[in-house]
């Protein structure tokens, strides 16, 4: 599903490499916790997986597609079709309603539209919101929502049109402890229903126990953070 081989990445004008990963493999349907303290290259790795950054060396293979063989427009297209991304915070576009935020990926991805298989986007949003417990918030302004509610909206947006992979960048860091566990459980349930692969990145080791597999970026990344 996700396969990295001999990947090396260095930011332009930086003195040192940020990332050097000889091998990383994630199978379909896996729910992987990736631990990394700040500065260990978590965000860099996620952006490489999302095809926003391209490593100088090595191969990134997602769904059997080598990202380095695509041009930037094709990578954008690939990302919109196959990946759902959940941010740490500020996940939503403030001037759109909850429903409009969730529907947004469809306007960039024909593939996600196709996967709805003729179901109306609005009814699919309704279904997702129902599962996430935000059914009655759909017409609200996102600025009126609590942080926890906003993260659920972000999950709904990431999942609409069934992308194969969800990348989550510390989505629980602004939630309190009780809500964190509940949020992750809910995310698991939905990913399981849809057979979605989940890569969950966090610096908070206390969440590790919830996942079937846990990796530490400190072990994978051969570049040592100073």
């Amino acid at each position, binding site marked *: 599903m996700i396969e990295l081989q001999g990947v090396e990445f260095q930011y332009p004008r930086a003195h040192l490499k940020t990332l050097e990963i000889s091998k990383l493999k994630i199978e379909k349907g896996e729910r992987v916790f990736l631990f990394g303290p700040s500065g260990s290259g978590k*965000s860099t790795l*996620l*952006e490489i997986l*999302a095809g*926003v*950054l391209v490593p100088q060396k090595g191969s990134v293979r997602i769904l059997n597609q080598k990202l380095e063989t695509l041009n*930037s*427009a094709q990578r*954008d*297209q690939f*990302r*919109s*079709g196959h990946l759902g*991304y959940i*941010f740490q915070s*500020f*996940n*939503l*576009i*403030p*001037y*759109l309603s909850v429903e*409009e935020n969730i*529907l*947004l*990926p*469809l*306007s*960039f*991805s024909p593939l996600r539209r196709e996967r709805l298989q003729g179901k109306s986007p609005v009814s699919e949003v309704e279904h997702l919101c129902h599962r996430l417990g935000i059914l009655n918030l759909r017409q609200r302004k996102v600025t009126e929502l609590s942080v926890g509610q906003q993260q659920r909206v972000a999950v709904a*947006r990431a999942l609409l049109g069934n992308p194969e992979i969800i990348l989550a*960048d510390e989505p629980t860091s602004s939630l309190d402890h009780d809500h964190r566990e509940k949020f992750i459980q809910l995310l698991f349930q939905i990913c399981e229903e849809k057979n979605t692969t989940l890569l969950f990145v966090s610096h908070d080791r206390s969440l590790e126990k919830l996942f079937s597999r846990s990796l530490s970026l400190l072990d994978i990344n051969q570049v040592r953070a100073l």
Partner: protein
Amino acid sequence: MTFLSLAFKSLRNRKFATSLTILSIALSTALLLSVERTKRAAEEGFTQAVSQTDLIIGARSGPVNLILFTVFNMGSPTANVSWQTYQKWKSNPAVEWTIPYSLGDGHRGFRVVGTDENFYQHYRFRGDRSVEFSEGHAALDLWEVVLGSEVAAKLQYKIGDPVVVAHGVTREVGIQKHDDKPFHVSGILKPTGTALDNSLYVSLQSIEAMHLDWHDGAAPSDDKHIHQSEIHKEDIKVDEITSFFMQTKSRIEILRLQREINTDKTEPLLAIIPGMTLAEIWRGLGYVDQALKAISWMVVAVGLMAMLIALLTGLNERRREIAILRSIGAGPKKITALLVLESTTLTLIGVSLGLLIELSGFYFLKGWLENNFGLYLVGAVFTSTDGLYLALTLMLGILIGLIPAWRASRLALKDGLSVRI
């Protein structure tokens, strides 16, 4: 959720900055168009200060001088036209009508024109506008005077008021006054927005009558003085006039008649075609119009700069938004397109609003502009020049919008999905 509505909702989210930007573009566009419209009105007003007159004829001087003192009350004639010569041209079979003008006297800074009934009947300006009375009637009797609207307003004269004409056009009080022969106001003209408003009109005979007892340009001594009541219009012989207006029976006669008058050996005269001379003078004044236009283009530039600043400052706050759009698959090109769409929308609305402001502004202020500035909005409401200016402003707006768009795509590439501000 289309791309267009995304751009629209983003703009709506920044209502305040957006409306200020639109307003600044609208106002600068309105100014640009207003300057153009005013220039058009001024040009039409100037070049049609006299119309339907084919030739203006005076003693030989220069065309500019001749038109300035006949039509604009400016400068003074150098010599006169004899009555016989005037009669000769007046009776020419090609001539439809003539209006004689006799100048040289004034009243408190305003010029007194000696003329005849043809002036009231045939004088035209701005196309087919004729001389009309707001009250009273033409000054055809010896001691009657008609006032231009401005004269009546400034001096607050009413029908029947006495008017003493001074020898020579002077400000305040004339050095030598014809105070032994006062006139009485017989009529007041409607405002015309031309130099007609600033003159007083009497009959040709009145001018002669005032000077009847004068000799060699000097006032009479008491023993030579002739009393007003002893003078009768029928007895007065007009010796000379200053100039005259002429309309020919057919347009094709104009050039032939002009040449004939200019080359006539009996008395050296100058005949000019007023429209041509007026257009020539206007072209000479073109730099004023150029300066105005330059200033309004600068205002347009400032308006567009305001948009540039608003978009650029807004950009920093929108880096999160851009990262989110990137995460769901919007490439830097789409981000660029989004911002270009925004600036284009802003400019388009701004320019349209500017046009609306200009059109409605002139529509509602028409009367006020005419009364207070003598600015008559003749001519087309919208011309191809206006269209060109609108298109140019729109194009400039789109071009300037490329700057924040380019910067947004740079930021999008730099930030990726994780914005650290």
